[in-house]
């Protein structure tokens, strides 16, 4: 019952009013696996387009993505962050410099390689990430408040299953020639 109550008219759920929701799939017919997969692939593509919208809910999504990767990796190098995000090192460096000015990340010389530096999140950086995550969750809650709990749980479960069975994690397994295999 902690769900915020300032969402739109509960009588018209977004799914009901969306023009995109005119799929030919008849819910009463048993879906063939192949057709179901096609639909899923289409839905996934739409999901990746939607994420631009999701990012727009958070004001500084770009630098925060970088901050999130630093938090995830612990102490790390710019090149590793850039590799994980598939971004240019120069772009990531600029983001990190801005985050550093805000006191959200800190640098330290790498004792194993004096030419390079290691970056990590400050407590303020972790707090900022926590705030933004809460903000995203709040925005999600507003939009999914009509969903039964079981459906929200199913969505999490299936997102997790899809991500772990179909896609490898560039952060957990940084690109390296010897480990270019997906986990089974």
């Amino acid at each position, binding site marked *: 019952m*902690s769900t915020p109550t300032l969402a*739109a008219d509960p009588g018209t759920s*977004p799914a009901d009013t969306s023009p995109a929701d005119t799929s030919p799939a008849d819910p009463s017919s048993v879906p063939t696996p192949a057709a179901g997969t096609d639909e899923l692939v*289409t839905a996934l593509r739409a999901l990746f387009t939607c*994420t631009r919208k999701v990012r727009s809910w958070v004001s500084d999504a770009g630098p925060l993505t970088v901050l999130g990767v630093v938090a995830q990796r612990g102490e790390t190098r710019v090149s590793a962050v850039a590799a994980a995000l598939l971004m240019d090192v120069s772009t990531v460096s600029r983001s990190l410099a801005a985050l550093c000015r805000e006191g959200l990340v800190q640098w330290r010389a790498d004792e194993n390689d004096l030419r390079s530096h290691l970056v990590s999140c400050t407590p303020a950086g972790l707090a900022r990430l926590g*705030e933004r995550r809460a903000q995203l969750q*709040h925005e999600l809650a507003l*939009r999914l408040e009509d969903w039964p709990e079981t459906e929200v749980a199913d969505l999490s479960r299936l997102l997790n299953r899809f991500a772990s069975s179909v896609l490898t994690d*560039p952060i957990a397994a940084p690109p390296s020639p010897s480990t270019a295999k997906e986990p089974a």
Partner: protein
Amino acid sequence: LAETTQPPTPHTELVDSDPAFSDVERELVVLLRRARGAAGSLAREIHPDLEPAAYGLLVRIADAGTSRATELAEYFGIDKSAVSRQVKSLERLGFVTRERDPQDARAFRLVSTTAGLTRLDETRAARRERVRRQLEAWDAGDVALFADLLRRFNAAVDFSVR
């Protein structure tokens, strides 16, 4: 659309939000991160010299039909210099070409070449096939449920609350 005149709640009060939504948020973040990684391997499949960032641009140019560099910079939230560097590499590989902008004689519009579109289609088809094979291990009910939930999730996300 919505009568939401209330200001957003301060973030500090949101930290203890419903764990169900924090699960969705977490899984979404993981999925997107992994999808980014997948885009990187797609880029290498298209051409070993194609950088992941350039792959994103190629997809956008192909899907949009034609784009200006400034539009791409805005869409991806990166600076114009980064866009032109990636566009140059796409031009070198013969995947993208530039045409004079009919609306602005000083500007160019970027268009994907037939070679670019063909390579992109082939790579996407191969990827779709791999996803399909992975999903064969799932039961049809879960596949259908996931497609349905995602479709509704996308519609919900598209729906403006403010």
